[in-house]
């Protein structure tokens, strides 16, 4: 056990991935000497060389497109997209090539490509640096979409993503990069749950709160606050957004009868919509109230001086929890 920040945990996980397989590569803008703008790849180029930790030209379509080519040659690229808002120039290569090439080949080719995306707001950044585009990828068959919420998961999930023979869109909660926690760097992967399994962060009986990424911590705090008011929240970190671990979700909702989904992304058409639709369909007779959603309003991400109002926080989560008891 070591105490690591989330950013450091990813760094250690990436190091393991590079050590364990000489075909593993890291590519992206500024991932080399600089170690990435969040230092997630710090020191890796020094130790593994410029051929394995590659500073690419400044073009995201090029990064993903060449990663696809490298994968076809047997490599396992892990691409960094510098910020969430800059994944869109690569969108075509991701949805039309990366996600579909295996299907196109009737299973002849494997595309073990990881696309790391620091996502979400809360760091006082300028435009395009606080986006939450995960629903766009979850709607695209052929991709695995995951998000880590804390250092321990970051460490194991990035390794699992690197080991996956399928493309993985890997979301990292950028405002939690500096959060610290105990990480079991010895036990490692052997004891870690698979990355497509949800995790019960806090057990509870009255209402299920589903979340992922940066909202895991916030929802955990909400559960603590609610407990003081005598309300028992079960917090589940979805971890995998595609596929969803519906088993864990349904079991909890059948128990609690109430459900709130929380994410930073825009509510309309977000992951919460899918979760709500599925939960309602499968737990219809268990539900005491409709699944409520907490997330961003139907506006672009606002200037950062307003973000505290835009982002779901403890109050808005508890407010939604309260509302589920109003039915």
């Amino acid at each position, binding site marked *: 056990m070591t105490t690591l920040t989330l950013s450091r945990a990813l760094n250690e996980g990436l190091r393991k991935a590079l050590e364990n397989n000489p075909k593993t590569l890291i590519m992206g803008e500024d991932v080399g000497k600089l170690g990435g703008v969040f230092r997630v790849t710090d020191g890796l180029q020094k130790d593994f060389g410029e051929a394995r930790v590659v500073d690419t030209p400044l073009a995201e379509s090029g990064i993903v497109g060449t990663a696809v*080519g490298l994968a076809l040659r047997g490599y396992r690229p892990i691409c960094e997209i510098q910020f969430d808002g800059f994944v869109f120039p690569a969108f075509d290569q991701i949805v039309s090539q990366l996600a579909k090439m*295996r299907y196109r080949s009737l*299973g002849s*080719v494997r595309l073990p490509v990881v696309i790391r995306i620091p996502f979400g707001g809360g760091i006082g950044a300028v435009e395009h640096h606080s986006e939450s585009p995960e629903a766009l990828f979850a709607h695209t068959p052929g991709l695995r979409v995951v998000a880590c919420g804390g250092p321990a998961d970051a460490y194991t999930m990035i390794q699992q993503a690197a080991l996956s023979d399928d493309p993985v869109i890997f979301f990292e909660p950028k405002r939690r990069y500096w959060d610290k926690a105990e990480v079991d760097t010895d036990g490692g992967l052997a004891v870690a749950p698979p990355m497509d399994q949800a995790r019960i962060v806090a057990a509870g009986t009255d209402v299920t709160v589903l979340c992922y990424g940066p909202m895991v911590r916030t929802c955990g705090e909400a559960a603590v606050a609610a407990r003081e008011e005598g309300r028992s929240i079960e917090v589940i970190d979805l971890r995998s957004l595609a596929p969803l671990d519906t088993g864990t979700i349904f079991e909890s909702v059948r128990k609690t009868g109430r459900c709130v989904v929380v994410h930073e992304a825009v509510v309309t058409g977000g992951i919460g919509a899918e979760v709500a639709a599925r939960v309602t369909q499968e737990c219809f007779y268990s539900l005491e109230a409709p699944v409520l959603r907490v997330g961003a309003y139907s506006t672009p991400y606002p200037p950062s001086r307003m973000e505290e109002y835009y982002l779901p926080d403890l109050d808005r989560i508890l407010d939604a929890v309260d509302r589920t008891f109003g039915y």
Partner: protein
Amino acid sequence: MTVKDAGRAVSRTAPRATARDTHRQADSAELIQLLTPEGERAEHPDYPLEISADEIKALYRDLVIVRRIDFEAIALQRQGELGIWASLLGQEAAQVGSGRALRPGDMAFPTYREHGVAWCRGVDPVKLLALFRGVSHGGWDPAEHNFHLYTIVIGSQALHATGYAMGIQRDGAMGEDGDATIAYFGDGATSQGDVNEAFIWASVNNAPVVFFCQNNQWAISEPLERQSRVPLYHRAHGFGFPGVRVDGNDVLACLAVTRKAMQAAREGQGPTLIEAFTYRMGAHTTTDDPTRYRLSAELEAWKLKDPIERVKQYLIRGELADMRFLDDIDAEAAAVGKRIRAACQAMPDPPPGSMFDDVLTAETAQLAAERAEFAAYLDSFADEQRELAREGR
């Protein structure tokens, strides 16, 4: 300003006429040619080509067969056996010349029109028919013949080829006997960001990749001057690597130029852009109607530059081949045609449930559930029909 004026304001400043002139007549000074349209051998100082009569005859065979495959496919489409077909008519030399310049270890990244290259790589044409029939989206194993899947989204494969080439570098598979890649794309594709990004990646990494652009003068209905106002091979210079224009209807020149570029690439001299100057003799695809946008005079002019006829003339004039040889090739081509026609007609539809296959390497629970639900749903119809049948009894 009136609506009409707006039109004039643009045409006054746009250099269309000039661009058109530049593009339509490839300046012979810049066009690498080793076999004239009349079937005479030409020499080029940078591209000496030692080639035996047998080798030329083999190329002739390829040309005739791929044209036949194309012909057959068009017919199959007309008869409703294929959904669509993208004809290579007129581009046989560009494809066979470049395709035969490749070594087994080289990897080719085609568009949707490279049936001639597929042939050279040993891919069964029936697989191509399967794609255009709607039976598969490709479905061959790219590693089997080192021929990647057809790519329909314009330009994407240029980046795949470049990434693959970066893999070759990392494998240490460079050198005289090393590997290289070739990316095919059309004139229209040169406008896509991806193709230009591939030029950048290839040049800064000095990657062993050759960009083979078949400039067939048209991107569906748009003539080249909607994509560029200078010859396309110039583009490479701006990115810091060589670009050359070859007579795309000259199989020998295409062979020599591609071979040299591939060799340079594998030996670490980096990328080359080859512009094969040719013409799309047919429609864009079988659903297109080129009479809406181009003049038949252009077509007639290009007929005189036919890529097969000139090889035939060369062989006959030089007495390198007799009628028997030519007839044999025709017969072989006909046999290939017959075989693929039969195979196409006999091709069963894929089992509906196979649409759930190969989405990911390991099926998700979600997909497994959908697969099962679908199977049950299909069965319900079978049940219904059985019931109906029973009732009928």
